[in-house]
């Protein structure tokens, strides 16, 4: 596809890489937090719920700034991780972290809903048949929530692809390093004659977002069929 220039390709590929890792790494945490919120009652549950949803409500610039303060080289967490060779500031890993944080609420919501659709009586039945809690989760709960997990992952992936505000605040806009689709569109719009490139990237964004939404819709329908088929 030669209608896209090398800089545009670079932004697309970086975005896909950032979104992929953001989704993959946050998925286990997403499942754990969704399980906690769907199934457990504990002190401070409202607080955890609020924290998870905060990135959805806060201005993305604020989220980005908080990430910078926390995970920057001089931040309390960033300073601890730096000697271990883990650096987020102004790296693609930072873009992935920002994307993961921004997509997390969407992911948790989708997975939490599918947890709530699973009848705990099925899990009880599995335990009477000899399955320990670990095996109950692996053989009954997980298969039943799987479509919801996939839907949540797709949503988070789509969100990560389009993330702009938190990313540019946290890791800036370095071509080849942290310049994702959205930042690239923004950059092209700032330079004279960049509209063409911006428009092409806009088209790519629309296609990717629509594809992700359709996939998520399809998976949501499957969870309904599967969990409701008892």
């Amino acid at each position, binding site marked *: 596809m030669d209608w896209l220039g090398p800089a545009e390709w670079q932004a697309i590929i970086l975005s896909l890489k950032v979104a992929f890792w953001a989704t993959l790494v946050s998925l286990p945490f997403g499942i754990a937090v969704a399980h906690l919120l769907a199934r457990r009652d504990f002190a401070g549950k409202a607080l955890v719920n609020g924290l998870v949803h905060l990135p959805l409500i806060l201005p993305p610039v604020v989220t980005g700034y908080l990430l910078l303060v926390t995970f920057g080289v001089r931040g309390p967490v960033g300073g601890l991780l730096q000697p271990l060779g883990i650096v987020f500031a102004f790296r693609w890993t930072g873009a992935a972290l920002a994307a993961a944080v921004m997509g997390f609420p969407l992911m948790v919501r989708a997975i939490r809903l599918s947890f709530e659709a699973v009848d705990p009586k099925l899990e009880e039945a599995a335990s*009477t048949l000899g399955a320990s809690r670990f095996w109950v989760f692996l053989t009954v709960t997980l298969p039943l929530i799987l479509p919801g997990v996939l839907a949540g992952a797709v949503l988070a992936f789509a969100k990560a692809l389009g993330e702009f505000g938190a990313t540019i605040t946290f890791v800036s806009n370095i071509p080849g390093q942290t310049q994702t689709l959205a930042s690239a569109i923004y950059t092209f719009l700032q330079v004279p004659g960049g509209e063409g490139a911006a428009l092409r990237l806009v088209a790519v964004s629309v296609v990717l977002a629509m594809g992700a939404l359709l996939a998520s819709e399809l998976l949501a329908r499957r969870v309904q069929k*599967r969990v*409701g088929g008892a």
Partner: protein
Amino acid sequence: MSVSIRVTHRQGDFLLDAAFEAPAGITVLFGRSGSGKTTLVNAVAGLLRPQAGRIAVGDRVLFDSAAGVFLPTHRRRLGYVFQEGRLFPHLSVRQNLLYGRWFAPKGARREELGRVAEMLGICALLERRPGDLSGGEKQRVAIGRALLASPGLILADEPLAALDEARKAEILPYFERLRAEVPILYVSHSAAEVARLATTVVVLEKGRVVRQGPAAEVLADPAVTPVGARAAGAILEAVVVRHHADGLSELQAGGHPLFLPRVGQAPGSRLRVRIAAHDVILSRGRPEGLSALNILPGMVHEVRGGEGPGAIVSVDTGAGRLLARVTRRSAEALGLGPGVACHAVIKSVAVAPEDVGGR
């Protein structure tokens, strides 16, 4: 192998305080809803941790509050047949059936899938999904799944309550076959199910055991009507003699002929027949010119008045002890009392097919 259960558990205002022994066969926990039956079974399953007590299957202690023993559910080696089946919707019938086997200890007695599927008549369903099954089919698969986990005890919590009469009649024979294979603790509020299945009956009322013993003995006691006098009825043990061309079957109970609507069992089979108390009429003299075919001479054992106008009379006949539900007024008019000779009249067509079962 016998099961010994002693449980004390308070939940709000409700106090469950029950102790009993369940010998081999089917032990039915019999009582109205809210009497603590399900709580008791869930305690045996480990789905609920009682405040105090001890539960043991044979010499395996599942729970002992004094010794601090509480085996988690998955290590109790039980089979639990729930009221709603609870099949795994994402697995095929075959995978559902084999689920418990993945977790059964290696040395455990292995039930064979083919034999169990055949016994339950589900061979043709193995590749289907639970969502495609009828209520009766689901319940048979649930029974098979519990059995294939090689359990030391099967728990069944009103497994027929969600089914219509025809489906109930379809499932009951399978429990009768299971009776010989593994001890079963069966929860029910249906007198017909108790009469049909129970080896032992444990009557629960408000969280307490008010009566326990062999089914025929407990059900023939007019004092035991945990689900109301309307459901009272005694069990007769009978042998099929022959099937007549007019649609009746001739049975023999304690040397007395008994005519019932055609039963499914072949001549020579031993049966238990539940005779509902409201289908028995009492007469002091031998009735003449009556359309009823079954007239059994006997002697009143006990008359027990209830709260309403009715009374339940137990009568010892040659065929066994029967219960009759009459009005108190007739009981007085006839002068019924312990030791009085009378005749019990049973209308043949009154005996429903689901009240006749193998033994």
